[in-house]
């Protein structure tokens, strides 16, 4: 496979949420991501300990090692990745369920609705309610176009 073909293959697999990992480091980073995504999105995964402890136990490496490796490969930190995933999940719940922000905060184990609200605003630059309003407006316009 030429490098161009390899990039093209990776791009098309990306659409399905699959990514080709080339190195041992890459494989471990993918495992870290998988554990975090499961931790955030799967409510049956009951995590009673701190996420650093959970990751370290689950993957059999010290958190310091995992954390350095993750930053080296992804240009972002584990903490940041967890926050992004949680905000993504709260976006899904805001758009696709009738849950209000207080209920979403409770579901995602935030200590308060204010904490979620602040983290949402810090991560996206907009408030949860503005986010919801914008996406609903977009959907309405898309609907009008198909009618």
């Amino acid at each position: 496979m030429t490098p161009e073909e390899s990039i093209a293959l990776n791009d098309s697999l990306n659409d399905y949420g699959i990514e080709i990992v080339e190195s041992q480091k890459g494989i471990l980073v993918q495992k870290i991501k998988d554990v975090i995504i499961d931790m955030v999105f799967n409510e049956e995964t009951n995590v009673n300990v701190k996420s650093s402890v959970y990751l370290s136990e689950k993957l059999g490496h010290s958190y310091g090692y995992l954390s350095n490796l993750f930053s080296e490969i992804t240009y972002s930190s584990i903490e940041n990745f967890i926050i992004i995933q949680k905000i993504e999940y709260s976006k899904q719940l805001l758009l696709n369920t009738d849950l209000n922000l207080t209920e979403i905060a409770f579901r995602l184990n935030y200590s308060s609705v204010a904490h979620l609200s602040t983290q949402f605003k810090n991560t996206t630059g907009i408030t949860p309610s503005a986010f919801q309003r914008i996406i609903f407006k977009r959907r309405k316009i898309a609907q009008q176009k198909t009618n």
Partner: protein
Amino acid sequence: MHTDYIHIILADDDEDDILFFTDAFDELKINTKVNTFKDGEELMNYLNTDKAVMPEVLFLDLNMPKKTGLECLSEIKANDKMSGIAIAIYSTSASEEDIEKTFVLGANIYIKKPADFKNLKKVLSEVVSINWQYHTNSLNKDNFLLRV
């Protein structure tokens, strides 16, 4: 993964701004490849050619001659081939109305032009890293809204 880069297009009629942007990208940790266009018409002509490479992120200045950023945005979002590009609008305006309007039209990112180079670098770094997250983790791009 290390050899990957983000392909970026920048459309802006201000030469100084283009220079600032490309310098800022050069100093980022993430590898980027930047193409620049000096107005909306030139940009759209390029994107409409068969050999055009669709960028991961397109930075659009709102006020450009011949074709404005908003016109480009609408055309891009109406075109299946281009609709996957993450659009970053940047403007000197920070009116809530403008911002919401561009988001509703399909922009993913709204950047208020920073006043100095240090802040510009910080903002671009944030935009490119978050976009990188969406790109490499297959997050839902429809839900990608960022204001910096």
